[in-house]
């Protein structure tokens, strides 16, 4: 990939990658580091990107992987109060899942294994339906349902612990 192609990719998609990394990591410094890592990988593997059917999906896939790695490296995430302002704008009416679940799950994303993390991002961040997640991952709908049920249960427990001032485990 040439320098100008890479720069053009940054101009077009940089804000989307940065937004996604910030939402996953909730740490602007760590997110910025991951954005650079994503574009370094794009620099190295630009040919695959250039022929990808969806450039955004390709970049998000790499960004998710880099974020999971960052979460695994840091282990402990900054777990701030639930009363912080939520994400600036979301398309209203899309949130068939309660926003609170999404907030809790994304805040504690680092605690889940990669498979659960992947479902959490597809459901809470990308807002795909259960069927779409099953198609995207190649997993059965039953598996997706189980993971989502698990996430909802964990969200409920984590929220109760946070609101009750208990130590979150």
């Amino acid at each position: 990939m040439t320098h100008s192609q890479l720069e053009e990719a940054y101009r077009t998609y940089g804000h989307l990658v940065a937004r996604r990394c910030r939402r996953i990591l909730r740490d602007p410094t760590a997110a910025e580091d991951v954005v650079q890592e994503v574009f370094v990988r794009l620099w190295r593997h630009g040919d695959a990107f250039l022929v990808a059917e969806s450039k955004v999906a390709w970049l998000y896939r790499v960004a998710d992987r880099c974020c999971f790695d960052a979460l695994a490296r840091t282990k402990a995430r900054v777990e701030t109060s639930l009363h912080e302002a939520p994400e600036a704008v979301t398309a209203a009416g899309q949130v068939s899942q309660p926003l609170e679940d999404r907030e809790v799950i994304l805040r504690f994303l680092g605690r889940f294994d990669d498979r659960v993390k992947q479902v959490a991002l597809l459901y809470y961040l990308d807002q795909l339906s259960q069927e779409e997640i099953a198609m995207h991952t190649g997993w059965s709908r039953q598996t997706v349902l189980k993971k989502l049920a698990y996430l909802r249960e964990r969200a409920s427990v984590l929220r109760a612990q946070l609101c009750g001032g208990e130590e979150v485990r």
Partner: protein
Amino acid sequence: MSLHPSELVLERLSVNDLSREVREVTERHVADCLSCRQFLGSLETAKEERLREVPPEMFMANLARRRRREERLARGRLLSVVAGAVLAAAAMVVVIPRLRETPGQGVQVGTDQVRLKGGTGVTVHRRRDEAVTILPAEARIRAGDGLRVVVTLDRAAVVDVWFVDRQGRVDRLLESGPMELPPGQHALPGSAVVDTPCLDLWLVVATGEAATTLTEAEVRQRVARVVDGARDDASPEVQIRELGCE
């Protein structure tokens, strides 16, 4: 799909990344939907802010610096890897006088050396009671065994390696993530020690794009497919070798 397009679809629409069919449907919805138009507007604002805060020239300069730094680190790592490969080769000469040759190209699972498409090979070196041996296909592992991975590349490639145990736990061998390696034989840094009690392991070696994009969940999935009896022919970039317990 719910009443509104997903955020992913709207994000893709904002950068013209949708197929014509989906784009037309989405655009029709957006034309009549204030909240989706607001969301698209917020993306446009985010783009302007991003380019103002981190202009492309600055970002590219940062990227170039980062890449130079990583290349310097990789060269440093390469020196230790080469040293490791020399030691491993010496151990092979002492312990096993003659390596079994694996002729031909393509995918072969279960031989001492798993050969990747294009003539790339992977061998596992086992340290047990201070003796280092190349682990033959039929050999088994036991608790306390130390395992090292040696890859042979016929061209420069990015490599990543994981061990997956029978309980589905995934451990990455390369702590700092995928490594870009030149052609030749490389003893990868780091080693795995078999837990007590011993659990069957699967070694997963990815090269090329797969080394960069594969998530741990996908690594686990691929191993599950192999355990279920499927040959992973769809992706010659990802090779899996079973390391069963004694």
